[in-house]
């Protein structure tokens, strides 16, 4: 264990990048999810199709493949992004697909009369979605939104593939310098728990707070 304690600064720097990447890409993925979920339930066929194609393509491709394709493929088209920015884009787009489906599931729990009533009092379709349907939809999907957060937090580790200096990437160098892979990786597991366990508790609290009482 002394390997971990002696190198706490390495773990902390890695954890910081992991947290940044998780929070930023969760926020972007949430925005993508809300918009595309609205597309997927909209009465406009091209928007529905766009949403379906996006979810179908992204959700069914391994994250590691997306990372490598984006990071090494786009420079061939003349677009070179830094490792962190590339990771942010890939994680947001990937998690956005799952977010879309989660939010769409929430929208399906909102009775159709709600939207009809909102339109009847003169709200536009964007207002109906943003002010009436989505707020109710999100209340019922807090647990899966929490799952997505935790999955995303751990998925950031795949960004080590493209040289983002997050927890796993930094631990690789530590393994070389100490030749004690198991102790180093046990420290990595604990570092992820420090991030994921409290976020599980937070989402639990949020769930109780916004629960629909029936």
């Amino acid at each position, binding site marked *: *264990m002394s390997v971990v304690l002696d190198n706490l600064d390495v773990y902390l720097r890695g954890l910081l990048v992991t947290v940044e990447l998780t929070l930023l890409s969760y926020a972007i993925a949430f925005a993508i999810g809300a918009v595309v979920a609205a597309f997927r339930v909209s009465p406009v066929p091209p928007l529905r199709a766009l949403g379906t194609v996006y979810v179908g393509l992204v959700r069914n491709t391994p994250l590691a493949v997306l990372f*490598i394709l984006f990071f*090494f493929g786009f*420079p*061939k088209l003349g677009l*070179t992004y830094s*490792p962190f920015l590339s990771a942010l884009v890939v994680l947001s787009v990937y998690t956005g697909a799952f977010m879309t489906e989660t939010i769409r599931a929430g929208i399906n729990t909102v009775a159709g009369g709600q939207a009809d009533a909102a339109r009847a009092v003169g709200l536009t379709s964007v207002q109906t979605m943003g002010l009436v349907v989505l707020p109710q939809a999100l209340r019922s999907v807090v647990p899966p939104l929490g799952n997505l957060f935790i999955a995303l937090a751990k998925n950031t580790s795949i960004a*080590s*593939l*493209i*040289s983002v*200096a997050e927890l796993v*990437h930094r631990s*690789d*160098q530590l*393994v*070389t*310098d*100490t*030749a*004690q*892979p*198991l*102790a*180093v*990786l*046990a*420290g990595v*597991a*604990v570092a992820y*728990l420090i991030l994921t366990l409290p976020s599980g508790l937070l989402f639990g609290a949020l769930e109780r707070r916004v629960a629909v009482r029936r």
Partner: protein
Amino acid sequence: MAGRRVVWAVALALVAAVAAAGCGGGGSSAATPDSLREKGKLVVATKFDQPLFGQRNPSTGAIEGFDVEIAKIIARKLFGNDITGKIEFVETPSKIRETAIENGRVDLVVATYTINDTRKEQVAFAGPYYVAGQDIMVRKDENDIKSVTDLNGRKVCSVQGSTSIDNVREQAPRADLSTSFDLYSLCAEALGDKRVDAVTTDNTILVGLIQQSGGAYKLVGKTFTTEPYGIGMKKDANDLRTFVNDTLEEAYANGEWKRAFESTVGKAGIPTPTPPPVDRY
């Protein structure tokens, strides 16, 4: 609420178990030449993606290279000339080499494994059987990088978790070492994309990459470290270590080592060196 407390207790116990596994050594006792003969099989950790040293031949599926030939010399010494089915190669990336030895999954590690003091605390080394040196690979049109000090202020790629990164940090402190991947071929890709200005690691590995690049890259040709490649085994495997060291010296003397080198690394144009004296530390 009692149920919740139980859940937490179980969770904590799991974390403790993981932590304990991380600390403990363990595994079975060390192999000896006799125990290996009794088992009738030598399990060798090597790389499957390392041109010239240990690489899977895509058409035959066989693992080929200098490391593989060295392992076969040891196997022949153990089992006699017919080693069909008596040697098994296990793909072992750099970062799990110590673990593979400690938990007894493999008997020997022959995988471009540099002997150093940190590693000597975890495992025992026979050899060295070859001394490589760290060099620099650049794009063909690059003329400003002539030695390691020219890497200051430039972006340099190596494989994550390799000693190559530490070496550059020491000798060119202002080099940008933030780019590292888990495969050398991705470093070569990044060099082609101009994400980095140089790729650095052992010259033997760079020669393989240059061969594959079809002339897009070139070697600077000025090594700045010595990397003695050793054969890793359990720390307390004293008999096996002596046996492997004896076998190496015999192979130096009878020309087997030279033939192994010439049929693998030598084919890439690296002249056959004098074999390094084994270090019976």
